[in-house]
C-alpha cells in the first residue's frame, strides 16, 4: 500500500473523480494514539484471557499476541498504543478489572 501523500488531489475531469470520497492508501499512517488523554494498562496477573477487551475495542487497537506462559502456548490481548485513543471502553468492559486507566502525562 502506498503511504500518505501530501499532494493535493484536484480533479479536472468528472470521469476521473470517484463517485464518493475514497482514500488511495490504507489509513495505517494515521496514528491516532497521539489523541489519547488516558492510557489503559492491562494487568496480566489478573487477565483471564477472555478477550472481551479485544471484542469491544472500537478502533481494533487491541491485538492478539501469541506467548508462552509456564511452557504453555497462549494468546493474550496487547494494546497497540500507536492507535489506542484512550476511550476507556476496554477498562469499562473488563469483567475482572484487569485493566487500569492512567492519565497520560506527556
Amino acid at each position, binding site marked *: *500500500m502506498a503511504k500518505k501523500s501530501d499532494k*493535493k*488531489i*484536484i*480533479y479536472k475531469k*468528472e470521469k476521473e*473523480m*470517484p*463517485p*464518493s*470520497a*475514497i*482514500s*488511495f*492508501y*490504507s*489509513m*495505517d499512517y494515521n496514528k491516532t494514539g497521539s489523541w489519547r488523554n488516558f492510557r489503559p494498562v492491562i494487568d496480566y496477573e489478573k487477565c483471564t484471557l477472555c478477550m472481551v477487551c479485544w471484542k469491544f475495542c472500537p478502533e481494533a487497537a487491541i491485538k492478539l499476541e501469541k506467548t508462552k506462559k509456564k511452557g504453555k502456548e497462549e494468546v493474550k490481548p496487547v494494546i497497540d498504543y500507536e492507535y489506542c485513543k484512550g476511550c476507556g471502553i476496554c477498562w469499562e468492559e473488563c469483567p475482572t478489572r484487569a485493566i487500569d486507566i492512567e492519565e497520560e502525562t506527556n
Partner: protein
Amino acid sequence: MRKVLTGNHALSYGAKLSRAQVISAYPITPQTEVVELLSQMCASGELKAKFIKVESEHSAMASLIGASAVGVRTFTATSSQGLALMHEMLHWAAGARTPVVMGNINRAFAPPWSVWTEQNDSLSQRDTGWMQLYAQNNQEVLDSVIQAYKVAESLDLPAMVVLAAFVLSHTSETVDIPAQEKVDEFLPTYKREYKLDPDEPHAFGGLTKPDNYFELRYKIQKAMEKALNKWEEVGEEFEAFFGRKYGLVETYKVSDAKNLIVSSATIASTARNAVDSLREKGKKVGLLRIRVFRPFPAEMIRRILSSVDKVIVIDRNIGFGSSGIFCQEVKAAMYNEKNTPPIFGVIAGLGGRDVTSKNIIEIYEDVIKMEEPESDIIWKDLKI
C-alpha cells in the same frame, strides 16, 4: 407463474427474484410481513442471503451500507417512524453511493399513532439523495424492485420503492411472478468498482475538504439527472422481457383532455375510475400519474401539462407551512413555462382516510367551477 400476493409479499418476492445477498431489517407495522417472508426464505435456503437481525432501523441501513460497499446486493424495508430513524443513514447511503434498494410502506407519522397510509414519511426523505418510486398496484411493486436494482446499480444511487399501507401492503392481488432465469438475464450480478476490501484497504467517506466536497455533490445530482433516462430505458427493456411497460409517469386519456388530474400511488389508480365516470358524462378529463418522484420528471410533466386548461394535483401528504408536496413540485416545474395552466392543490386522505372514486369526481366537479385557485390548499372531506 401467477400467485395471489399482498403488497408486502410482492416486495419480498421482488427482493428474492433480484437475488438480494444481504437483508437487514427491523419489523414495524405495516411492513413486518415483508421481512417475515424474507427471513423464512433465508431460513429454508430458498433465498441464499445473509439475514441480519438488528436492534433498529438505523442499524439496518448502516449494515446494508457496509454490505453494499463490499459489492453485494442489499435489501431492507420499513415504514414511517422506522424510516425517520434511518434518516441519517439514508444520507450516508446516497453520499457513499451505495445502491441499496428498500421498500417503504407509506404510514402516517405519530403522534397521534396511526398505522394507515400517508406519504409524509417518504416525502420527508426527499432531499436525501434516494430515488423514489410510488407504485399503484402489487404487480408494479414486484416489478419495480427488480427495475430499481438495475437503475440503482448502474448509477450508484440508492432507491426506495414506495407503496400505500393497507391499500396495497395488506391487499391481495393477482401478481405474475417472472421466471428466475429471465430475471437473472435481465438483472446481472452487481459489480462495484470501488470496493471495501481488506486486501486492498481504502478509507471510505473520510474527511473531505471544500476543494473536493462540492464536486462530489455535483456528481450525485448528475447521476440523478442520468437516472431520468435510465428509468425510461429500463422500463422499456423490462417490457421486452416481461411484457409490462413502465416509465417515469403514466398518462390516461390525456391526448384530448382539457383538464388533468395529477396524483401518485393508489390515489392515481383510483382516479382512473373517476376519469372513466367523468368521461361518460362528457367531461374532457385525463390523468397523469407521477411514478418516479426522485429524480423528478419535470421536463416530461411540462410537456404534458402545458397544453391543458386546468390542473388538479391531489396530495396524500402535506408540507406543513406550505402545501401538498407533489403540488409544490409540479408548480415549480411549470413556473417558467409560457402557457402555465392554473394549478389547484388538493389535500385528501391524510392518516389513511379513504379516497374513493366518488371523492375524486367531487374534487373534479368542485375545482373545475373555479377560475383560479383561491388558496394554496383545497381540503377534501374536511369535517371541521
